[in-house]
Every structure is written in structure tokens, then in C-alpha cells.
């Protein structure tokens, strides 16, 4: 009898627990759905300003639905803006790099998927592991090291143009006064945030650097924002398109001068960029802004010519169609007559092929061992100085 009562009590408790369990589960699901449905639409996103509570999900999750975009992206310049040293193609292909600057000898040696940066003055030697490799190697690659608790940018970098090491762009070529100085440039907090903020994903949030979270390269969520809420919505069967940022929603000018320029730099930094003189050729939104044809028109925005999900097209003829999207009119009169609200521009009298080879000169800043395309589109006068 007592046992029967006990069994009944147990059964009752079990039933109550089951009901409570379902209740809690249901409540949690309801709460999660509610949090997703109540989430604010992501109408704006600044790639450099991830909030402290950003929920990054990673490329693998993105690729479950967006395989077509994610797959080629891994080979793009932005996707490879930083390499993990263990996977670095440049360091693997160049296992023994050397350089000399006055009394200092440099060597970068590869061993077991790790690379070591060594500098010696013949008496003393500093050897530190390379932590991060910045740049895909198309022009070059610069290294970040840690020494005595501080992060350093390497004084020497790899340049594809010379197939070896030379001074890092911006570094002084003077003979350093100490071995520590010869190692490189100590990165301030701000510089660290700038470097990692643009070459990796998730490492800077809430204005703070967190190297534990570094995902090398500019990954999906750098440009589209953290995908946590978007994925949660999709998984719960809710519409989630509004919970991820699509830069397509921006106007041409906003895209170039605010969004892409978060890393590629615009006139918000004009004083500093001007002072760099020819070295500012690397900052495309800043340069294109001065072009006569620059406007809010999407046909002159960054993505009009570059598909960010793919490697940059090297064939100059590829860009002809982009120029001819506007430069169609035979004369000013025709230009006016053609006006359909889309706007057009006069066709080039010299030619309609390989436009960029004439109007976007290749400029090689000192030290870079690479010629960058100047995005200041213009009629280039023979022998003209670099217009700064």
C-alpha cells in the first residue's frame, strides 16, 4: 500500500516535472523567438565598430546557405588580408629569408609550420616567433611579433617584387640604435586596433582589442555584421534578412566613402593621408573622390568594378564595360538628349578599350616594390607630378 502510494507520488512528481520541463523549454523557445523577432533590423553597419556584444558565427555557418559567395571569397585579397602563420603560403614558400641593415642581420626561418624572426648585431640576437602575417602577399607581407609583452610590427617585410625582405613601408631605413629598435615598431593600442580591425574579423569589439578572438582575414561578418541574430532567426523559421547587413542598401557614395573606406580610408583622414604623399595611392576611396566622374552614382562606387566576393580582376579589359556604362555619348548634345535620369558621359575620343591603362596610372610608392592602381581617374598629362 505504502509502496503503491509511493509509486503514485513518484508518477505524479514525474508528470509535474515533465510538464514543467516542457513549460521551460517552450518558454525558452518563445523567449528566443521573441528575442529574434524583436531584434533591431541591421540597417547600418560599420566594419570597424563591432559592438561589445557582437555574436559572430563564423564563415562555416554562413556557407551553409551562402556557399556560392563564401567559396570564392577565400581566395580574395580581403579574405586573405591576414594569414595564420601555420597556414601562411608566403612563409611556407619562402622558408629562409634574409636581410641586412648596417650591423644588423635579419632572418625569417620556417620550422614545423612555425616561422621565427631573428635579428642580430653579431653580439646579441633576438629571436621571436611570428604571431601574425599581414597581407596576402600579392604586394608583400608584414609580420606582427611579440617582444617583452608588447606587439611589434616587423621592421622588415616580405616583398613579392624582390622575392625577399626589405624595409616595411613607412619604416625608417636609418640604422637602428639598438637591437630592440632593429626588431621593429612597437604598436600602440590604437595602431593595434587599426591593424587587426582591418585585417582580421572579430578581434576588435566595443572598441577593445581581444586577440583571443582573432579570425585571420576579412571574413563574411566583417562586412555583413555579426550573424548571430540572423542565423537564430533563420533557424527558428523567422525571416532574417533584415538582421544581417547588406552593403547593397547603401548609396554609391556612402558605400565608397563610409563603408569600404572604414578600412580603405577616405577624406575623414584627409590631413594624414595628404601628408603621406605618393604613399596615399593605396587608399582608393580617398583617391577616387577627386576624380571628375566621382559622384553618388552607383556606377562609380567600389562594387561597380569590384565584386568583393571574388579575387580582384587583373585583366584591364574587364573594366572597359564599367567605364562604358557611363561614357556612351558621342557629344555633349547627345549626352543631353540621352538623359534618361541615369546620366551619361562623353565617350573617349582616343579609344574604348583598356580605358584604365590610360586613365588610372600605376604608381609605385618608394619602398613598396609594387605598383598600385591610382583610383584618381583623370586625363593624365605627360610628365605630371603625382597629384596629391
Amino acid at each position: 500500500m505504502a509502496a503503491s502510494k509511493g509509486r503514485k507520488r513518484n508518477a505524479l512528481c514525474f508528470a509535474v516535472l515533465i510538464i514543467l520541463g516542457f513549460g521551460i523549454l517552450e518558454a525558452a523557445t518563445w523567449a528566443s523567438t521573441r528575442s529574434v523577432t524583436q531584434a533591431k533590423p541591421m540597417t547600418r553597419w560599420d566594419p570597424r565598430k563591432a559592438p561589445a556584444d557582437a555574436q559572430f558565427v563564423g564563415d562555416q555557418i554562413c556557407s551553409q546557405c551562402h556557399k556560392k559567395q563564401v567559396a570564392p571569397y577565400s581566395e580574395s585579397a580581403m579574405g586573405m588580408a591576414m594569414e595564420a602563420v601555420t597556414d601562411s603560403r608566403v612563409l611556407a614558400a619562402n622558408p629562409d629569408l634574409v636581410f641586412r641593415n648596417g650591423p644588423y642581420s635579419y632572418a625569417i626561418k620556417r620550422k614545423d609550420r612555425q616561422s621565427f624572426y631573428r635579428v642580430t648585431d653579431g653580439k646579441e640576437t633576438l629571436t621571436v616567433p611570428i604571431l601574425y602575417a599581414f597581407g596576402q602577399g600579392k604586394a608583400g607581407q608584414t609580420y606582427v611579433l611579440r617582444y617583452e609583452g608588447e606587439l611589434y610590427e616587423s621592421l622588415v617585410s616580405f616583398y613579392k617584387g624582390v622575392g625577399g625582405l626589405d624595409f616595411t613601408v613607412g619604416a625608417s631605413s636609418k640604422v637602428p640604435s639598438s637591437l630592440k629598435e632593429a626588431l621593429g615598431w612597437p604598436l600602440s593600442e590604437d595602431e593595434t586596433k587599426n591593424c587587426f580591425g582591418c585585417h582580421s574579423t572579430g578581434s576588435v569589439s566595443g572598441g577593445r582589442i581581444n586577440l583571443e578572438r582573432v579570425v585571420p582575414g576579412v571574413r563574411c561578418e566583417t562586412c555583413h555584421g555579426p550573424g548571430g541574430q540572423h542565423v537564430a532567426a533563420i533557424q527558428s523559421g523567422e525571416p532574417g534578412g533584415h538582421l544581417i547587413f547588406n552593403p547593397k542598401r547603401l548609396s554609391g557614395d556612402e558605400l565608397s566613402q563610409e563603408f569600404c573606406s572604414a578600412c580603405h580610408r577616405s577624406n575623414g583622414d584627409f590631413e594624414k593621408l595628404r601628408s603621406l604623399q605618393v604613399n596615399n595611392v593605396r587608399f582608393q576611396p580617398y583617391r577616387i573622390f577627386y576624380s571628375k566622374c566621382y559622384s553618388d552614382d552607383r556606377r562609380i562606387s567600389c562594387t561597380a568594378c569590384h565584386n568583393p566576393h571574388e579575387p580582384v580582376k587583373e585583366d584591364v579589359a574587364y573594366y572597359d564595360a564599367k567605364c562604358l556604362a557611363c561614357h556612351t555619348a558621342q557629344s555633349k548634345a547627345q549626352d543631353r538628349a540621352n538623359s534618361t535620369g541615369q546620366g551619361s558621359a562623353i565617350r573617349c575620343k582616343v579609344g574604348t578599350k583598356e580605358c584604365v591603362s590610360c586613365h588610372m596610372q600605376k604608381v609605385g610608392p618608394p619602398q613598396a616594390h609594387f605598383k598600385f592602381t591610382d583610383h584618381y581617374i583623370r586625363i593624365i598629362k605627360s610628365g605630371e607630378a603625382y597629384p596629391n
Partner: protein
Amino acid sequence: MTNARFLVLVALALTVVYAATARAQSSGSTRTKRAPANAQTAARSNAEFEQAVKLGDQARSAGRLDEAVESYTKALHVRPKWPDGWWYLGAIFYEKDRYTQAREAFSNLVALDPKRGPAWGMLGLCEFQSRDYERAVISLQRGRTLGLAGNQELESVVRYHTALLYIRFEQFEVAYEILKEFLRIDNESSKIVEAFGLTMLRMPFLPNEIPPDKREQVLISGQAGLNMAARRLDDARTAFDTLLARYPNAPNVHYAFGVFLMNQDADAALKEFRRELEISPSHQPAMVQMAFEYLKRGDYDTALALAEKSVELAPKMYPARNVLGRVLLQLGQVDRAVKELEEGVGLAPTSPEMHFALSRAYARAGRQADAKREQDTFKQLQDQYEARRSPRNNPDDNQSKAKP
């Protein structure tokens, strides 16, 4: 640098450059205007003018300045549109510390030739000496914009006085930028250190108004500011350490240190700004700096509170309008952002960054024509800014650190 004799030498040297051309132009115009009926009168006037100029030149060369004034005055009586006459008179009066008369002479000159930068520069210096500081800063700045005929000494004097006036008008950031130009010509004299010190401590004084008990503080701050501007960070840090040890509770010391730390350790900088606010609870520049940092971090709510407070405290300071407008833009309050940035442009119409920020806001508001106009203004102002920098661009600028 402020030596009056030296300035007169500069002024007189510049005169030589202008004299030949102007005199030739002057004679030419006389010839074309000469009417046959008045031929004799005109010839007499011409001779009288030439004679007065000749006597004036001789007296000036011999250092008989009173005689020179008399002769040039006669010449100007005959031909009041003779620009060099006004230049000579102005320079001599300046030499003799007769600033009111010098000012009148240079005023006549700029009325005749409003594009003559050196005349504006000298007029500004006269106005400075006459303590008409508001006019002086306008004239000096106009001289700088038009150019000072490549005379480095006059450029230095004008630059120095312009910086002093911006300090006096509490435009410390502008003054700091102007003082930085001295580093390009390796001028790190004690006067420049002193001016940097006033800028760092945000003391709206002219050098002769610095209270004796503040002089040491100004000079240490000046060393810190000058080294900071020259990017000699270790030396700047040493000066700041001394300053903080000796004046831990003085207003603006923590603010200045915070500004120094900003690019190196933003968290430490914010701590210094907070300390400054403990010492001076209404320290608006500290609030603006903090607001910019929080804007950069994407912490818009914190940035907004600070920016709004700083505008409330100092509605006429354009950096506060700038940061408030930019924060509002990030928060999607586009109309308010436009309003704040328009206010900012009104307060600082020559600030390229204000026009750029406003162009961004107009673009966001869908006002493309307005955005384009502001972009164009921005480009023009940038060119002017560059023109001021370019005469002796620092070759080391090429080596500046900046990565995409």
C-alpha cells in the same frame, strides 16, 4: 622675432620687389590717362611725384626716416594710388612704433591691392600692436592665405602672432596646428615653447600676460607640447611626467596628457580625461575628446551624452557640434545631425573636416546637391590647407606610418 627693426628690414626688402613693377604700372597708367589739354599740369605733377619719390628713397636709404616720411607723403599727395608709397610709409611708421599711422598706411595699401599678402601681414601686425586683436587675426590669416611673397622671416613673424591670437581667442587646437608649422623649419626657440605651453594648458594669455607663478608650468607644458608635435614621444612623456608630478591638480594638465595618450593607449587617455573632469567638471574639451573616442568605439549612447553636454556647455565650439552631429548620424537621427553640423560649419567655415562631415550628413539625408556642394567646398579648403603646408613640406612625412 618681434624685433621691430627686423620687421622693417623685411618690409623694406619686400618693397624692392614691388617697386619696379608698380612704378612702371603707375607711369604707364598716367601716360594713358593724360589728356592733351592738361598735358602741362600732368607733366608738372609727374615731375613733382618723381622728385618726391627720389628724395624719399634717398632719405630712407640714409636712415633719415622723418625726411623719407615727408617726401613719400608728398608723393602720395600727388598720386594717392601709388601702392609702394603706402608700403614705405607703413614700414617706416612701424619701425618708429607709430602703429596707428602704420596701420592706416597698410589699410590704404590693401584697399588698393587686396591680394597683396605681405601688406595684410603687416597690417595684422600693426593691428596686433594696436591691440585690435580681432581685426589682427583676420588680417594675419588673410596674409597667410594670400602668401607672404616667400619671405620666410615675415612668414615666421606672422605665423607666430597668428598662433598667439588664436591662443588668446581660446582656439587652442588651431593655434597648436599653426605652431606645428615651426617644426618644419626647425624653429624650437623658447618663444615657440612658451606658445606651445599656453596652448597645452589652454591659457588664453599673450606671453607678456602670463602670471609669474604660472611661467614654469607653461614652459614644462610647452616642452611636452613641442615634443608631442614633433613626435618625439619619449621626450614628450618625460615632460608630461614632470608636469604631472609638479602640478597634479592643476587644470588642463590631465587633459593635455590625455590628448598625448590618445593614439597610444586610449583607455589610459580616457582615465586622464575623467580625472580632468574631477578637477574641472565643466571641462568641455575633455568631454569632446571622450565623445570622439566613444564614437570611434561604436558606443554611441555614451558618446551622445558627452557630446550633448559639451554642446550645452560651449555652443560656439565647433568640435562639439562636429562630434554631436556625427554621433547623431550614427544613431540615425539624420535631421538633427544635419542641424548640428550646419551649426558647426557656421562656426568654422574654413574647417575642411566640418564641411566633409556635413557632406556625409547631407548624403545620408538624400540631399545630393547639398552634399556635392559641401564636397566641393571641402576640396577647395583642402587645397588652401595644402598650400599653407607645402612651401617646406617635411620630407619625413613620406615616412609617416599609415596602413590601409
